[in-house]
């Protein structure tokens, strides 16, 4: 607690003045002292002069914190129910005392006798001062001049001022100059005055909290939640105006941040935000920083060439920040937004357009259209129906045979499990439509597990029925690799079906290897150690190098079907395939060629040393019971061969 020896206390004509002489002021400490003093002198009004060095400390602290800090301060004050500070400005001592008595009931009070004194006190206490009660007619500097000074100040104008006046005519001028309310003279009843003060403080604080909350600290643009509120309001007040929803995204912001540091990335974002702010101003719109490098605009409808122009301008400004990697953008526009849908949905559409790979084709913006909409709806439906489809076994596992071609006659050796979806309403849904979708939504893990179980059960059924093992390759998506229980799950499935681990083959796509090779290497190594056969799928489709073959632990290499397609026509492709086969063979890795459709392809592959083939030339993917015919035929041939 404060010690009275910190103060010089003198009694002059009923006033107690004190001067805080110690430079260890926090607003809180000042308050405690004053409160003590107030109670110590039995409700006598206090005029206090706050030590200016201390006040400067408070001031600089507040300026540094800006709005967010103010907000924190206010919230804290509210939570702890801390007494606010009110400045009473009146040249008349009796009025000052009277008002001080009333206001002192609930607030800490400081006084000034004229506008000039008041302005100094306001500046010194700006972080703490909650309200000013201001008389208009005063010597030295009157209330009007003070109001004007405050109004022009970017920080001080937020402190609410209630004008003390007996003149109706003064009210308009005061309002014009920014006063928030009036207290008439002679004064109202104390309760009325206190209620008016409380209300004005509350409103002003709410505004600061709102200001600090609704905008993004870095760019000053609205944050997403408030942006949506304002867009809804805009739509309500101006429902007939044609408006566009726009999403702008910085490509690979994280790489910019990584290469040049966060400050650099922030500088780029600020440049973009400034330009967007200007666009919003020019087009009667509002701008928002959604998150990371994504921005939203809600603006009066524009023709597409305007978007192209903005794309150039914003790109130019974003790249003005010196010495950085080139910053590229993409823009998606949902034009003439449908007022019947939710605001969020409008921006989902703009974002969908933004995320279409339009940059690849040199286009500066993408417009949301009906095709995107249909695709979106279709995708949504597929995603929504997936759980039921799993439950009702709408997904069917088909099996495409693989033949060993190292001997004289191609010999059925294994199969690849391929999933098909027979949707009750949509009919056959292409895997090309739902697999990429499930991959982005994390649903692929569920589907993969479903296929693993189905395939394992099938291997077991065939084993029981035919007495031979036809190992089945199942797909392990890159998302599965991140599942810490991947190995456990696979082992459980194998065990449940009484299989050995080498009776279930695992296909992992080549692109997964390049994405996160270390994790893949570790996972694959573990799976192989457990006895699973691991096949690298789609080899040659991405950025793979032959060098990968030396470092990656794999059992089988599946050549991408795009190479196989042209081996008859292109000598170069054929040579490449032969090279891959040879290289794999040097490392004792057998190869599988996928997509073999013609006899000639088969012949060339056999001549090139390929170990296994798979494709329509031999068989399309078959439902389990059709596949059984192949097994039946195969076992018969083998039996005959054995008999011979």
């Amino acid at each position, binding site marked *: 607690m404060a010690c009275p020896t910190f103060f010089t206390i003198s009694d002059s004509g009923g006033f107690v003045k004190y001067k805080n002489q110690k430079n260890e002021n926090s607003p809180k400490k000042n308050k405690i002292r004053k409160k003590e003093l107030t109670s110590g002198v039995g409700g006598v009004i206090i005029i206090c002069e706050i030590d200016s060095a201390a006040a400067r400390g408070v001031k600089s602290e507040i300026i540094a914190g800006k709005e967010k800090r103010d907000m924190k301060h206010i919230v804290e004050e509210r939570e702890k129910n801390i007494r606010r500070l009110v400045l009473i400005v009146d040249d008349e*001592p*009796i*009025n000052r005392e009277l008002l001080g*008595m009333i206001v002192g009931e609930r607030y800490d009070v400081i006084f000034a006798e004229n506008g000039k004194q008041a302005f100094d006190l306001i500046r010194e206490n700006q972080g703490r001062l909650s309200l000013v009660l201001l008389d208009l007619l005063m010597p030295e500097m009157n209330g009007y001049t003070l109001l004007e000074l405050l109004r022009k100040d970017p920080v001080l104008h937020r402190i609410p001022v209630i004008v003390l006046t007996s003149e109706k005519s003064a009210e308009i001028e005061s309002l014009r100059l920014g006063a928030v309310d009036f207290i008439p*003279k*002679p004064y109202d009843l104390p309760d009325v005055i206190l209620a008016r003060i409380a209300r004005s403080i509350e409103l002003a604080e709410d505004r600061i909290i709102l200001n600090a909350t609704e905008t993004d600290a870095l760019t000053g643009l609205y944050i997403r939640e408030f942006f949506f509120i304002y867009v809804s309001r805009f739509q309500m007040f101006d429902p007939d105006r044609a408006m566009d929803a726009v999403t702008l995204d910085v490509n690979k912001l994280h790489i910019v941040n990584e290469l040049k540091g966060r400050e650099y990335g922030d500088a780029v974002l600020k440049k973009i935000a400034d330009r967007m702010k200007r666009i919003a101003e020019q087009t009667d719109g509002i701008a928002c920083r959604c998150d990371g490098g994504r921005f939203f605009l809600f603006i009066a409808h524009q023709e597409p060439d305007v978007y192209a122009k903005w794309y150039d301008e914003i790109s130019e400004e974003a790249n003005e920040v010196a010495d950085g990697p080139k910053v590229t953008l993409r823009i998606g526009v949902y034009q003439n937004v449908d007022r019947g849908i939710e605001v969020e949905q409008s921006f989902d559409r703009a974002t969908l357009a933004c995320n279409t790979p339009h940059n690849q084709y040199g286009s500066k913006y993408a417009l949301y259209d009906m095709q995107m909409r249909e695709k979106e709806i279709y995708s949504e439906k597929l995603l929504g129906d997936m759980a039921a489809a799993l439950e009702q076994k709408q997904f069917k596992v088909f099996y495409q045979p693989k033949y060993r071609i190292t001997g004289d006659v191609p010999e059925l050796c294994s199969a690849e499990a391929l999933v098909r979806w027979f949707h009750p309403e949509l009919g056959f849904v292409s895997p090309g439509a739902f697999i990429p979708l499930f991959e982005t939504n994390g649903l692929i893990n569920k589907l993969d597990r479903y296929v693993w179980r189905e395939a394992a059960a099938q291997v077991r059924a065939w084993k029981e029925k035919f007495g031979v093992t036809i190992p089945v390759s199942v797909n392990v998506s890159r998302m599965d690799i991140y599942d810490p229980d991947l190995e456990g799950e696979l082992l459980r499935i194998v065990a449940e079906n009484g299989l050995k681990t080498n009776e279930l083959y695992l296909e992992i796509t080549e692109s997964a290897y390049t994405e996160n090779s270390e994790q893949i290497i570790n996972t694959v190594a573990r799976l192989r150690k457990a006895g699973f056969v691991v096949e690298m799928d789609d080899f040659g489709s991405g950025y793979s190098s032959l060098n990968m073959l030396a470092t990656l632990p794999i059992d089988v290499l599946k050549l991408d079907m795009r190479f196989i397609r042209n081996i008859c026509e292109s000598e170069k492709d054929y040579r490449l395939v032969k090279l891959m086969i040879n290289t794999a063979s040097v490392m004792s890795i057998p190869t599988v060629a996928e997509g073999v459709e013609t006899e000639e392809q088969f012949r060339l592959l056999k001549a090139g040393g390929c170990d296994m083939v798979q494709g329509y030339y031999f068989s399309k993917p078959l439902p389990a019971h059709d596949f059984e015919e192949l097994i039946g035929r195969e076992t018969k041939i083998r039996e005959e061969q054995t008999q011979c």
Partner: protein
Amino acid sequence: MLTVEKLKEYGADTGEGLSRCMNNEAFYLRLVGMALADDKLEKLGEALEAGDLDRAFEAAHALKGMYGNLSLTPVYAPVYEMTELLRKRTQTDYSPLLAEAKRQMQALVSLANSD
């Protein structure tokens, strides 16, 4: 010695004045004491005598606020009238109103000095 009873007798709206002082009698009486010691009524007289209506308005306006807040109705009334005339800088003979204000103030001083 000034008391609330005496002020009531004098014609002040003590109920209103006291409520404005959070019903603190001592505080109210102290403020009335300050009003008695105030020299602005003198200054108003001087300004009127000098024909300086601006200065006179300032003084009258201040007095009006002061007397009004303390609900000293008898002295408030003539001061209020003067303030409104002076606001428009009306050229008129202010002496009757000033004399009335001074008389009321004197009455108050006498009350304060009586037992």
